[in-house]
């Protein structure tokens, strides 16, 4: 009798394990060598000037069968800003913009993902200059492949924008020297853990 109860419990546990869908997907590390985090701001209402961050890290929890469960965590080193102009980069690191000495990290953590096919509408909290604000962007899975070591690679491409003034980065907004709106382009290759 006792054995029968134990057998039932064991069978139920095994059944539960195989029948309940996996809530979280696989975890992928962002490969910084094959990824880009770009931004652009409009100069005196004319051209959009692009720059990039050279140092960042993060993970994406992704399940192809359930993209809405995707979770994204990214940390960017503010001091790694690069606009192909050393003098401008120094100014961008200064308290006029990113204040990189006081706030060395910019972080993003997703809070909600809505998916339609391979296209995800990601909402999350961006923390920059000591302030956290919601930011949304469109993220698309761009492809899958195998790396040189046989590792699984998945690519994503995202585009969005934010208002830098909401983070207290107000330099140059008045009189239209540099736009409040900053465009973001994120193209990452991730490696399955």
């Amino acid at each position, binding site marked *: 009798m006792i054995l029968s109860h134990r057998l039932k419990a064991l069978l139920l546990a095994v059944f539960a394990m195989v029948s309940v869908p996996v809530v979280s997907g696989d975890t992928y590390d962002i490969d910084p060598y094959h990824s880009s985090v770009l931004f652009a701001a409009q100069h005196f209402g*004319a051209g959009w000037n692009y720059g990039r961050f050279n140092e960042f890290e993060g993970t994406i929890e992704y399940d192809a069968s359930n993209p809405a469960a995707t979770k994204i965590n990214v940390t960017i080193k503010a001091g790694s800003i690069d606009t192909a102009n050393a003098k401008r980069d120094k*100014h961008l690191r200064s308290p*006029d913009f990113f204040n990189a*000495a006081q706030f060395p990290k910019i972080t993003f953590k997703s809070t909600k993902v809505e998916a339609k096919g391979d296209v995800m509408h990601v909402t999350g909290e961006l923390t920059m200059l000591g302030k956290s604000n919601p930011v949304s962007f469109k993220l698309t899975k761009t492809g899958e492949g195998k790396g040189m070591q046989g590792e699984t690679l998945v690519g994503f491409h995202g585009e969005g924008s934010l208002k830098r003034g909401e983070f207290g980065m107000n330099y140059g907004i008045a009189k*239209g*020297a540099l736009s409040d709106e900053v465009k973001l382009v994120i193209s990452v290759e991730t490696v399955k853990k």
Partner: protein
Amino acid sequence: MEESNPTGMVLDMVFKSAVLPLLVAGATAFLLGKFGPRSLASRRDVTAASGLLLGFAAGFFALNGLTEFPPILATNWPPYFALAALAIFVWIKPERFWFRFGGAVLLVGLCLWFNLRPLIENSWETGTAAMWLAGLGSVWIATLMIWPFALGEDQAEQPLFLVLCATAASLVAVMDGSVSVGQSAGTLASAAGGLFLVRLVLPDLRFGGTLHAVFLSAWGAMLLNAQFYVEVAPLAVALAAAMPFFALLMKLPRANDWPAWKRAALLLGTSVIPFVIAVVYLIQNQNKDYYY
């Protein structure tokens, strides 16, 4: 987005960092000096200190916005340091040496802690933090002790010395990294300029330890910002930081008997030397990239 207007941008900067602080500092010092309460008569440097504080704060907040308190950005602390300096030095009666020393230690401790807190807590090892705090604190306290001793209270040229020191802090920051930090130091220079103008019409205006504390707290914080947050070349910051020590020249024999123009020529003519060296150094080592 607001339509781009480069000329308007420059005029806006000039008004907020130069005209407004000068007017507010001058009007405050004049009105307090001329019509202020009699209780101020025995502490006449408080009149000038109040003018400098309000003029500086008006320009600073016009430029940077009236931000939250306590400030999130370390670079937004200087007006509060100046306010703390006024409160502490009115309270302690800085005429007495040990009271002044205690006030200077308290003030500099507060300024260093709040200005450098992000670095102390997140970036520096304990030994590095101790070294910086001890070194910076010693120099800062020394300036607070030297100025009232060397400059006295009734030298009309004093505000010009303040203008020169603040202009140096402003220019090294602007030339080597941050316009906003440089402009903020520029407001301090303009406010001191307002005091100079008022002294021309109010000969009773005095410039004692309270004024020195208000000025040196804000000015020192500007140099800390330039050094640690703007990445200004350390040599340029050190040269600017050396300028207040030229006040000791006023203790030369019989210097106090000299006419104002002669004292001013000595004080300004010598203290401008490190400033000029800093500017030349920055120009020579400047990255020639253009991006504005």
